């Protein structure tokens, strides 16, 4: 979990977790309870599955559209943000975190994670 530790050291990062694409395994670090992390993993897995399906549909419509395969997604709320790249999620405090920095770092660090297991 080297990437997770690096992320946790960044300003505004509340928690970082990893979820299995299949099954319900997960791991996490940071200020979340075990139960919250389990729920976050279920939600992130579901959205990632949906995004992947959408990417595949785009590919079927127009090959090489630039969206497929999706690398991740971000939900930006009024006070918190969830960033997901590959099978890693990161919960942010909007007042302290830089989303550009976090997304850039995760994209670089997780560039070689293949979506084969999805």
């Amino acid at each position, binding site marked *: 979990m080297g990437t997770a530790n690096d992320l946790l050291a960044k300003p505004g990062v509340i928690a970082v977790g990893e979820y299995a694409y299949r099954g319900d395994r997960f791991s996490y670090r940071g200020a979340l309870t075990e139960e*919250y992390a389990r*729920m*976050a993993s279920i*939600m992130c897995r*579901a*959205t990632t599955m*949906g*995004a992947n399906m*959408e*990417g595949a*549909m*785009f590919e079927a*419509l*127009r090959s090489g*559209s*630039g*969206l*497929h*395969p*999706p*690398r*991740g*997604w*971000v*939900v*930006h*709320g*009024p*006070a*918190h943000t*969830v960033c997901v*790249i590959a099978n890693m999620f990161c919960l942010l405090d*909007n007042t302290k975190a*830089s*989303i*550009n920095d976090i*997304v850039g770092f995760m*994209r670089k660090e997780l560039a070689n994670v293949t979506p084969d297991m999805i």
Partner: protein
Amino acid sequence: MTKLDELMKLPGAMAAFEFRGSGELLEQRIAYPDRIDESILDLLAHMCAANMSIATMQARGWEKVTTMKGFYPVQEFTLIGFDWSVVVSGLHREQYKQAGKFSLPPFMGVVMANDKADYEAAFAILEKQEPVQ
């Protein structure tokens, strides 16, 4: 300058668009018609409408069962694709809801190339308050 034109000035902006909550594309600006066209944007808008709805359901549920707040209403949903990202927002609609209006403005979105994408700048434009009409 309209918000769509403003979004098109973002680094790496490839397209900006407006769509209904049900997904129909209403208006668009396209920078590279050979790489992204109206039919792609139409599907993208439907996809973004679905994702906004799911993210809103998640934010709602999460805030209901945890003590953590600050996710609802979802301000933006961003899909980071292989080469492109799309950021969409319906935040402007919240102002209209709070003002008791039944007719809501459209959702807005921007497609950006990943290598130049400035997500924070996109959020700032989409979150800029405009007077309720």
